[in-house]
């Protein structure tokens, strides 16, 4: 029996796992390296779909981990496109418990007028899903190249997401609307309360539990039938007319009114260009009506 210090040195093994053409061999090599080093804490390096598809290696790693009950503490860096491609649950199943999203969300080349807002929503949804899966995520809110109007528009969206982990840093200048943005991020860090807005799903309904109010009063909203479908469909940002396709015979104006009611209750956010996105994260299994119940 050997007693060592609590913190082990991380091992950079990204090239071993993601740089090898054969997933089985890659995982075997990784295991061999870990056996030699006697470490469970592993830094996998940068994972990029543009260079190698990490999916086979991650699936192989998940299978090995499951069958041997290995307790790896894997971390890696990636970009939003790769994380979207792999999916939060697959990352977690492979044993990735910490992820750095690089180079920062919100800064890709723009092809649409509302690209900044929609990219922000897409990536905050990713952060929310990673959080649901128990993956610790660090991310940057970088809006380089965005106009003052675009920065201001994103700033207005941030208060909807105080239940989701805030960005760790926000590079860029602090002039113009950047001041609004940095203030909004600061508020987010100060007011961040994880798991205070969640939804649970059952056959034909969704129940949203809201604990964001001061004093931890629990309120809930139950949505049924087409309303529930709209809420769930809007986990990915979409305009009202797209969402209205799910509510046959209801019509866009009525769908929009319903969505706006959810926006008023801060259960959904709406961009300047009219995209709607539901903001609650999925309910944890431990969650009860009232914390401490049961």
């Amino acid at each position, binding site marked *: 029996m050997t007693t060592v210090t609590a913190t082990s040195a991380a091992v950079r093994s990204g090239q071993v796992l993601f740089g090898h053409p054969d997933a089985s061999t890659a995982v075997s090599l990784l295991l061999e390296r870990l056996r030699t080093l006697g470490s469970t804490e592993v830094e996998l390096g940068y994972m990029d779909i543009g260079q190698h598809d990490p999916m086979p290696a991650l699936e192989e790693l998940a299978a090995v981990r499951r069958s041997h*009950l290995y307790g790896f503490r894997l971390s890696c860096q990636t970009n939003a496109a790769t994380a979207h491609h792999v999916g939060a649950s697959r990352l977690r199943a492979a044993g990735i418990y910490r992820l750095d999203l690089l180079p920062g969300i919100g800064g890709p080349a723009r092809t649409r007028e509302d690209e900044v807002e929609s990219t922000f929503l897409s990536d905050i949804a990713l952060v929310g899903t990673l959080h649901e899966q128990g993956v610790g995520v660090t991310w940057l809110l970088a809006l380089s190249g965005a106009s003052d109007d675009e920065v201001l528009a994103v700033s207005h969206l941030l208060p909807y997401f105080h239940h989701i982990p805030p960005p760790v840093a926000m590079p860029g200048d602090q002039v113009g609307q950047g001041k609004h943005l940095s203030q909004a991020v600061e508020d987010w860090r100060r007011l961040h309360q994880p798991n205070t807005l969640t939804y649970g799903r*059952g056959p034909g309904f969704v129940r949203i539990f809201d604990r964001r109010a001061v004093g931890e009063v629990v309120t809930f909203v139950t949505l049924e039938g087409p309303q529930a479908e709209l809420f769930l469909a809007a986990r990915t940002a979409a305009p009202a007319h797209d969402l209205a396709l799910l509510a046959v015979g209801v019509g866009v104006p009525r769908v929009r009114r319903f969505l706006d009611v959810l926006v008023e209750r801060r259960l959904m956010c709406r961009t300047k260009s009219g995209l709607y996105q539901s903001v609650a994260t999925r309910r944890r299994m431990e969650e*009860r009506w009232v914390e401490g119940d049961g």
Partner: protein
Amino acid sequence: MGPRTSRAADADKRVLLVLMPWAPPVFPGLGPALLRSVLNRDGVPCDIYYANLVFSRMIEGDSFFEQHFGKFAISELAFTPYYFNSSPDEAAAGLWSHARGSARDGSLHKAERYRWLVSRAGACLEEVYASIPWGEYDIVGFSVMMQQTVPSLALARRIKREYPDIRILFGGPNCSWPMGEEILKCFPEVDFVVEGEADGVITPLIRDMRSARPVSVPGVYYRDGQGQVCRTAQGRPFGEVDTLPIPDYQPFFEQLERLGVDHVHPYLQLELSRGCCWGQKHHCSFCSLEDNLMQFRAKSEDRALAELLALAARHRYTEFFPTDSIINHRFYATLLPRIAELREREGYDFTFFFEIKSNIRREHATALRAAGVNAVQPGIESFNDHILALMDKGSTGIRQMQCLKMLAEHGIVANWNMIYRNPNELPEDYRELLSIIPFVRHLPPLHEEGLTPMLLMRFSPYFERPIDHGIRNVRPAHFYSQVFPDPSIDLGRLAFYFDYDHDDHEDQELAGYHLQLRAAIERWRRCYRENSLTQLRGPGFVTVLDSRVPEDADVPPDEEMPTKSIRIDGGRAEIFAFCDEIRGETEILRAFEGRIPPGEITGFLDEMVAARLMYRSPKGQVINLPLLLDVRERSAMMSGASSRTS
């Protein structure tokens, strides 16, 4: 004003079922809800009134009264003055005295609070009586469990006084023989008593009651023409559980909303089986489940799943409380994976609290967790093999430890109990038990009210065959004479809880060990830290992370200890991993024969036991103790974000 009649339009009469306090307001009352569904299915209109919700509002959702005090058998004393015309102050004094006696700090209980409680009971009866249009009903049924007899009698008397034509029917667990018979003998307000499960007889009984013909269905007590209490043929447990309708909880939710009882956060009751698959072979010595109802009857997986989905869709609810005495062991391989699949495929967020037998292995805990079971009641009751044998639990101390370990690894809350003062236990049992507790201090301790002396309850083997266990002078528990202050009542036939004598009660050494046990449990609660002993497994090694609070350390409850990391390599790591679940020492030696010398294996096990990283039972079985962090985290992953077990 003279008696009012309820016979104005007999053809339109309905049945009313009433659920009185102290039925917990968080549950919509499976029994009455199911009976209502049976009656409505059979074309007999039936309503339910949840008087327990009225009471909950009356006592302002007081969490102590509602969640703790209401479980005491004496709690119905709050209603005694309203049936027996006894002194409310005396009732309050009796309740206060009991509360002080059973509290850790009796001074926190104020007499005024109990006077208020008794006055609230009276106000509740008034409001319930005033709220119901009694003229619409010709039969009123009361579902009577442990603490509902006096509240039900008090309302029944009030009804009969004003509406003598309404027939009063009592049923439920507190009406089994001889309790039900005594109720009918002693209380003229009650016209009929059904014993046992009423699902198969309720409709013909109601029809018999409404006709001129004598009651003919089995399992019913009634009065003959001379006023003598008689019983029809012996009732039988309901066998075809798949044929039962799905209970309708709509009236519960409607009344919850109408009454504005906002503090009640309900759980949907779900009945997947009746009886006990273990108890029908070995009746645990202290268990009060009636032999007649012990026969295990489980719903089919298809029916169980259909009921779950129907209840969830109807009430738009995802939190379920199965009422089963014990989970059907078959469900681990059948129903639970199907629920897990629904979670995965449809995204349904169902969660469950199950009662389980503690003989689970990792695969069972995994199946529970994957299906959304976030809390269980696994019994446990002791870690000592002899005491468990006295209880006829069919388990051993090391099995109980394995159960708690597996549940903790999977983030499943275990609401477990420990029973002391068991007949014929020995001082050495406690010496061993006290020596085991330091091995399990990283596992969640039993809940606040979980340490209890053995209570002698009707129908338990201890009650049925007291002489076999050295139990003598069995008598109704002392408080019954306060709850039922009428000397003509045979409390021996009406009571559920009993006091008794036993030679062990004179044993001062045992009494001393009971106190030591209580102190050890207190220390456990103070020292417990979540995830304070975990293991991370890698290829060829195991890393144990140990931040347990030393047993004799005087540290504040929220203070964390530094983490010590212990690496175990090579063959030793393999032995350690091999002992994730219970292994016999011979089995271990055989598994590593030719690879690791026996002496080295034994030495390693000794070393691990000395460091309390493994436990070795008196029979030479071994289990490693740290929680597999990976399993823990994967369980959290299945449910979303960070894990929490308490």
